């Protein structure tokens, strides 16, 4: 049974003597395949969306140090993940979908509480999140053919271009869509071989932590995905200015408290990070409708094109 549902039951005044006190979950960070608390020792309260505003849990309030540890873990995992076969990466992503399916009830309850959705609506969001993994899983071994190709150069040379992952990608997960938005940002980063440090939705982080538990028991290698809960505006600048981060996804700048995506992009210029700006016009940042079928945009944002030449001769 879902944690929120059981907690409600436990609070009923007329529970009998056989009443059982539920074991609550401690929501922690996910770094390098482990679940540490924030090194800062800080937590913050997470409340349900909507009028009830009920206390749900204390989440770890990630710090600069946590973010930096996560970058180290992501860098360490990059070489092996990037050189895994595309077939292998596709299966790993598909396996995440399989495991999410098995914990559907828990995700539904958490998404309903986080986003203030009806159970039916939350269930649909979970379905879409699972299907999003499946959609991206299938791309792993197609990107090179769709985005690469042989170049007919004017000379006796074999000349070929193909996509490669850019490296470590920092991502600001969407603030509103706690699971579907998260998966929609996460999957296109890792499918091509990048590794990532994700700042989860600040006020709706619990589905992300549960996703981390799925990831930890899936085949995603430790360090490929690292999840930090906490204050977006506090931690994001450290990732934007981090010299060992190659790209940054600013999707979660929309509706983030006290955060300027212009400042983050400016900091990212210091080592010429690839920046995926938030949707919107001019200085606005709006959270897009994540239920729409994606295109290649988010995958391409974290790909480099490598061109290789070799002479032909007898």
């Amino acid at each position, binding site marked *: 049974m879902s944690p929120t549902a059981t907690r409600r039951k436990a609070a009923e005044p007329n529970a009998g003597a056989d009443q059982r006190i539920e074991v609550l979950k401690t929501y922690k960070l996910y770094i390098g395949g482990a679940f540490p608390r924030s090194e800062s020792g800080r937590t913050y309260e997470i409340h349900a969306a909507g009028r009830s505003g009920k206390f749900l849990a204390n989440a770890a309030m990630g710090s600069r140090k946590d973010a930096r540890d996560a970058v180290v873990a992501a860098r360490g995992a990059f070489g092996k993940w990037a050189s895994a076969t595309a077939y292998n990466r596709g299966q790993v992503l598909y396996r995440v979908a399989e495991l999410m399916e098995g914990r559907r009830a828990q995700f539904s309850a958490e998404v309903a509480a986080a986003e203030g959705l009806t159970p039916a609506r939350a269930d649909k969001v979970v379905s879409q999140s699972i299907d999003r993994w499946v959609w991206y899983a299938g791309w792993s071994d197609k990107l090179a053919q769709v985005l690469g190709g042989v170049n007919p*150069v004017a000379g006796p040379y074999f000349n070929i271009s193909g996509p490669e992952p850019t490296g470590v990608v920092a991502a600001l997960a969407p603030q509103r869509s706690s699971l579907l938005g998260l998966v929609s940002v996460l999957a296109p980063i890792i499918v091509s071989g990048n590794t990532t440090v994700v700042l989860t939705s600040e006020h709706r982080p619990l589905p992300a932590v549960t996703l981390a538990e799925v990831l930890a028991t899936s085949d995603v290698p430790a360090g490929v995905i690292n999840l930090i809960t906490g204050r977006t505006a506090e931690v994001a600048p450290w990732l934007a200015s981090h010299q060992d981060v190659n790209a940054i996804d600013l999707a979660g700048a929309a509706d983030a408290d006290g955060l300027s995506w212009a400042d983050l992009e400016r900091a990212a210029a*210091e080592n*010429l990070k690839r920046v995926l700006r938030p949707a919107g*016009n001019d200085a606005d940042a709006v959270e897009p409708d994540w239920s729409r079928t*994606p*295109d290649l*945009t988010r995958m391409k944002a974290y790909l480099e*094109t*490598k061109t290789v030449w070799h002479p032909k001769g007898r």
Partner: protein
Amino acid sequence: MAKFEYAPAPESRAVVNIRPSYGLFIGGEFVESTGDSTFKTISPSSEEVLAEITEAGEADIDLAVRAARRAFDGPWGRLSGAERGKYLFRIARILQERAREFAVLETLDNGKPIKESRDVDIPLAAAHFFYHAGWADKLEHAGLSGGSGQPPRPIGVVGQVIPWNFPLLMLSWKIAPALAAGNTVVLKPSKTTPLTALLFAEVCQQADLPAGVVNIITGTGRTGAHLIRHPGVDKIAFTGSTEVGKDIARSIAGTRKRATLELGGKAANIVFDDAAIDQAVEGIVNGIFFNQGHVCCAGSRLLVQENVADDVIMRLKRRLQTLRLGDPMDKNTDVGAINSAAQLARIREMTSVGEAEGATRWSAPCALPERGFWFAPTIFTGVSQAHRIAQEEIFGPVLSVLTFRTPQEAVAKANNTPYGLSAGIWTEKGSRILWMADQLRAGVVWANTFNRFDPTSPFGGYKESGYGREGGRHGLEGYVTTGATR
């Protein structure tokens, strides 16, 4: 080995007609600046003043951007892709017709050997226009929509800033894809090499290109900075230093302006012990001494396997003694002039640093002309990874030599810079080439060749060498929008 003696074989400069002074090319015609600031462009091989050039000010840039906007909203925007393409084909043909004139002018203004401007720069520039002309009416087939279902559309007015090392070629890399995709441009050539861009303006007139589609504004770095910051510019395309590239990235932060940046490099040219050594030596020479080393993708670090290092360096020195340095207009010249006094000072500073840090310097024994800016081909041995000459771009005919023992060590050393533009591999073992090519974090990998360019072949860097590609289907991507994300 003695150098063969050749009689002088100077190319005639009668084919070019340089005006004493030039205005700005805005809205299809040459106009006077609203200000009165000018500078002189000189021939770096003789320090002869070639012409007086206008330094465009903010008001001029504003006029140029408005002219480009009018053309985008007007005649150019209404034109079909097929008709747009025909203008590009015309430009390609006129460049071919006037190729010798462009080559001579390029060599005079830039200092590069006439055989390079004649055989590389100008033919490739024409090829870029010819290649992109064919894309103009085929953009929906370029796979750029990304599944959004929207046909690719032009972005608008593009501000383009190019360097002095391949003036007309870089102009073609910028203008051809921008126009093919339906954009209009304001282009600023480098302060030291504006003449071929100004001659290109005449080509646009001969091709009867609608007014305002191409605008050429000359000036200094300040002019370029104004152009990049102009609010009427929708997209920036820049080739130049990483430092300026970062400044551009900062300047557009928080806006919806886009940029493609083709920046510096510190490429490793990696020679294994099983390589065809004489071919590798030719590749090393081509990698770093082509165009006086004024090449962002130059193979400025030689990584040579330890057991053949002495042999490779001996043969390399022998080969460098046969290079002819001198009058760029002479058809036998291999190494021309350094582009400017400022660049020569930079090269001298970096080579002094190399010596001070303990590397061993060797320069080819050759007589340097008395006038002009010259630097003898130079190699440093005993270079360690921490040396500045192994980390920083020198942009001159200076090679830093390091050694390695294993392929893994070669990869680690090759990737150990903030740059990632290009790399070279020399080995006869095919599987090793492919493994190395996978490991090298660089946008262009040349195996058993170096410094090859083609309009169909995407070019551009990883990491701090910039982002975006130029050439091929990939190069178009920087000049279109598909509506999926702006």
